[in-house]
């Protein structure tokens, strides 16, 4: 049983989805989805533990050995991401039932969980697999279900956002498909480990170069890396609130994982270093992303949208970490992936709670909520502080590592740009904090606190933000090992 964990990780939510369909509507489907997601999380945690202590797990699907059959390969990098994705899914699902009750019609709720589990299966599949083509398949599974989830949003704009995301996402996925095709043409293999062995001998070929370029662009689209980020603010702000919580914490992280995997593991290192100044491009795009998105966030009236822009900025930070490179740079990125999942989930969860009670998340509608919904509002403040990078929150640790990496690489201007970026975060977070606490509401009708399950989920996240800001052993040690393994090419 234990040796089959890698495949169980993916197959469990995949089979859970149709089972959910049979269970039908409402609460039962929710409980079942929650159970499946929790089990996935437990599996991911077990995998992480095993990999951390006993090294890489290779699992041959159907017993067909690696280069011929499909291999599932779990190393620290994807085990870490598996935990993040399944964890954020579980936390979001915990709150989902209360959250969607006001946003989605009862007869559609069963289907909602089906799409959710499919999305989870797709994301986990991308992470677990060691086969390039498999990545594409799972990418499409997760994407298609994501479009569905987004289109379930409360306003008609959600349909339009979903459609646009569908077009952009499909183009991105097809680009990745082209890249994988080129790689296959050049090497005759789809197994990642195999590709890594064979690509260096073909690295002179323009085809390999083209493959890399296509894959990069495709992933950047899914990652919402500037300037390919235009789909994200619409998609995030129009989706059902709880879907945004889940997606913000997981979907872009998975795209980032692909970027790391293709750059560090599969393609030869001289590729990303010499042929194109990739590191510089990453840093430049990251900086532009941080500033343009943060400034855009400052001017948003709709707070879900503002925080969505903030996600683009945070992706910028992660890409900057990649661009700085070295163990420390990569470690900074990996730590930020985790911490960002925590803080964004907190922020969107708080917004979801507010949306349930007052039906909107515009700045004016949130005025004076600090007194009416103190527990939920505090969630926003806590997430915001973490986003800014205040000490004793998780965000501070991210910032510390990112700045350390930049300083150690001797990139002084970058140090200040990174910090300047977080000053912008103060502005867009503080606008909301002032509205919540220091403005009186237009009408004084009482508003109830968010439903209990949402509060529990929110406070778990808040505690997570604080806990991982104080006890950093887990993310720091794992990200260090994972980064060192990637940079030094250790198996």
């Amino acid at each position, binding site marked *: 049983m234990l040796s089959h964990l890698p495949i169980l990780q993916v197959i469990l939510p995949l089979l859970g989805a149709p089972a959910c369909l049979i269970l039908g509507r409402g609460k039962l489907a929710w409980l079942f989805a929650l159970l499946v997601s929790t089990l996935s999380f437990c599996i991911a945690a077990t995998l992480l533990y095993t990999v951390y202590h006993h090294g890489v797990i290779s699992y041959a699907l159907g017993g067909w050995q690696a280069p011929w059959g499909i291999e599932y390969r779990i190393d620290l990098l994807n085990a870490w991401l598996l935990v993040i994705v399944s964890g954020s899914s579980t936390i979001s699902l915990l709150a989902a039932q209360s959250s969607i009750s006001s946003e989605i019609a009862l007869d559609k709720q069963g289907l909602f969980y089906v799409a959710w589990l499919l999305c989870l299966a797709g994301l986990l599949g991308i992470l677990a697999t060691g086969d390039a*083509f498999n990545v*594409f*398949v799972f990418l*499409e599974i997760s994407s*298609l279900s994501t*479009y*569905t989830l987004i*289109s379930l949003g409360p306003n*008609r*704009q959600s*349909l*339009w956002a*979903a*459609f646009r995301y*569908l*077009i952009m996402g*499909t*183009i991105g996925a*097809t680009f990745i*498909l*082209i890249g994988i*095709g080129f790689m*296959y*043409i050049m090497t005759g293999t789809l197994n990642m480990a195999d590709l890594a062995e064979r690509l260096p001998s073909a690295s002179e070929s323009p085809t390999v170069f083209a493959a890399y370029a296509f894959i990069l662009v495709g992933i950047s689209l899914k990652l919402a890396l500037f300037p390919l980020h235009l789909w994200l603010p619409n998609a995030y702000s129009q989706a059902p609130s709880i879907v945004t919580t889940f997606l913000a914490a997981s979907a872009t992280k998975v795209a980032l994982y692909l970027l790391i995997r293709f750059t560090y593991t599969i393609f030869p290192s001289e590729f990303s270093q010499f042929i194109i100044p990739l590191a510089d491009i990453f840093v430049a795009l990251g900086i532009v992303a941080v500033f343009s998105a943060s400034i855009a966030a400052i001017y948003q009236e709709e707070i879900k949208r503002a925080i969505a822009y903030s996600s683009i900025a945070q992706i910028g930070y992660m890409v900057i970490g990649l661009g700085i490179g070295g163990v420390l740079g990569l470690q900074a990125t990996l730590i930020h992936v985790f911490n960002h999942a925590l803080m964004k989930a907190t922020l969107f969860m708080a917004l979801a709670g507010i949306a349930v009670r007052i039906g909107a998340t515009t700045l004016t509608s949130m005025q004076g909520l600090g007194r009416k919904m103190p527990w939920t509002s505090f969630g926003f403040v806590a997430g915001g502080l973490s986003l800014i990078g205040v000490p004793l929150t998780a965000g501070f640790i991210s910032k510390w590592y990112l700045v350390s990496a930049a300083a150690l690489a001797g990139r002084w201007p970058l140090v200040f740009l990174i910090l300047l970026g977080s000053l912008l975060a103060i502005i867009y977070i503080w606008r909301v904090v002032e509205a919540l606490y220091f403005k009186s509401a237009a009408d004084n009708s009482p508003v109830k606190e968010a439903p209990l399950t949402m509060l529990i989920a929110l406070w778990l996240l808040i505690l997570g933000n604080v806990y991982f800001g104080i006890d950093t052993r887990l993310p720091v040690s794992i990200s260090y090992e994972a980064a060192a393994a990637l940079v030094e090419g250790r198996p």
Partner: protein
Amino acid sequence: MTQLFTHYNYWIVVVLMMAGFFIVIAQGNLVKKLIGLNIFQTSVFILYISSGKITGGTAPILQEGITVYSNPLPHVLILTAIVVGIATTALGLALVIRIKKAYGTIEESEIQQRDHTC
């Protein structure tokens, strides 16, 4: 020059790809956008399949006297990709129907206009 013609399949791929991409970007009609997307994807399918073909090779069925087989793997892959493509198209069309119901139009410019006015 011979390179140009012997690899004519790639030229078809490139032309289809560009055509599809252009339609996705340039057309305002959502259904036409989806058609463009399909053409775009199909070009990639052809790229894969044609790469598996070996001149003189036959279908990969073990038989006496045949030594050259075409590579079957791309076909298998593309079978999957086609399924994915169909699913995408289906979902896209479903969304278009919903959009038509909600907005009363499937023209991009009109949708955006209606979003801004309300």
